[in-house]
């Protein structure tokens, strides 16, 4: 497979996409394009294969957000800069179940983190936050995402990754296997 990751386009084939989770399928099929191009509340990036460049194999959606400084509990603001906390939300990430186990999830999150770093370099951004299903929290933790405690019982697990950690990772020259 020669996979490319790019922005969702109107002519992309999304009807056959099935990651095994109906809300994630439904978002790609019915909301991703509208949210990206018409109401501008999230940009979706898709993974496609060279041999079928319109068929979506996986996707993720990013949006920008921030936490107003006055929303933080007073005793915790001391170490924070005196501004709103800008962040990127990794709102969704899914792989078609027919292509599980081929490293697509890794390729997608890799691209999402690189975009995060570019945005951080361009305009400033402090962290990336994701809403993980509880059974996927371990997968995000492998990339260094830390759980934010306190989610409501029915909500997904919010997880945090510091942009400084991503930047540090991008500046390491050797593969982990080559170190030590």
């Amino acid at each position, binding site marked *: 497979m020669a996979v490319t990751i790019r922005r969702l386009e109107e002519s992309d084939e999304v009807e056959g996409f099935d990651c095994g989770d109906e809300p994630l399928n439904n978002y790609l099929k019915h909301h991703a394009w509208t949210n990206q191009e018409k109401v501008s509340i999230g940009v979706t990036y898709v993974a496609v294969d060279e041999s079928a460049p319109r068929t979506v194999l996986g996707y993720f959606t990013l949006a920008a957000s*921030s936490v107003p400084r006055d929303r933080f509990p007073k005793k915790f603001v001391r170490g924070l800069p005196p501004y709103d906390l800008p962040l990127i939300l990794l709102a969704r990430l899914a792989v078609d179940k027919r292509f599980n186990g081929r490293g697509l999830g890794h390729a997608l999150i890799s691209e999402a983190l690189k975009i995060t770093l570019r945005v951080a370099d361009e305009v400033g951004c402090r962290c990336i936050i994701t809403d993980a299903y509880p059974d996927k929290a371990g997968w995000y933790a492998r990339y260094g995402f830390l759980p934010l405690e306190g989610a409501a019982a029915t909500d997904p697990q919010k997880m945090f990754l510091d942009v400084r950690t991503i930047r540090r990772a991008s500046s390491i020259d050797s593969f982990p296997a080559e170190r030590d």
Partner: protein
Amino acid sequence: MPPAVKEKSKNVAALPAKAPSPRKLKFQADLAPSEDSMVRILKTELQMTSNTDFLSDALALLRWAVTERKRGHHIVSESSTGERKILLFPRLERVAPEMTLPRVDVQWTEKELECLAELASGQPADPTDALIRAMRQ
């Protein structure tokens, strides 16, 4: 950070014989002592006597900055030796065209915000092997 500004509309008695004049707005700002002091110093330096003139000039400057960032221009100061500093003002960056990601509101619980503040104000964690591989891909 700009101070909270309260807007007050002026009560004007209607005069039926005259065409209505443009309504003037009155602003009342709650300034911290340090901000109040800063206003006084700036007014002195700029030889201004009225708060109206001060606000008018500040507004013109902010309007110019917003217009420039909307065009994608950076606001830069350059010293006599050529050293450049770029202004990065988070509110201003919201209008910059480089910021291609749309903005959304995230719902947070109090506990999540505590946890987020603790993590964001602490030292960053070391990258994991998977993260290093992801950034190398």
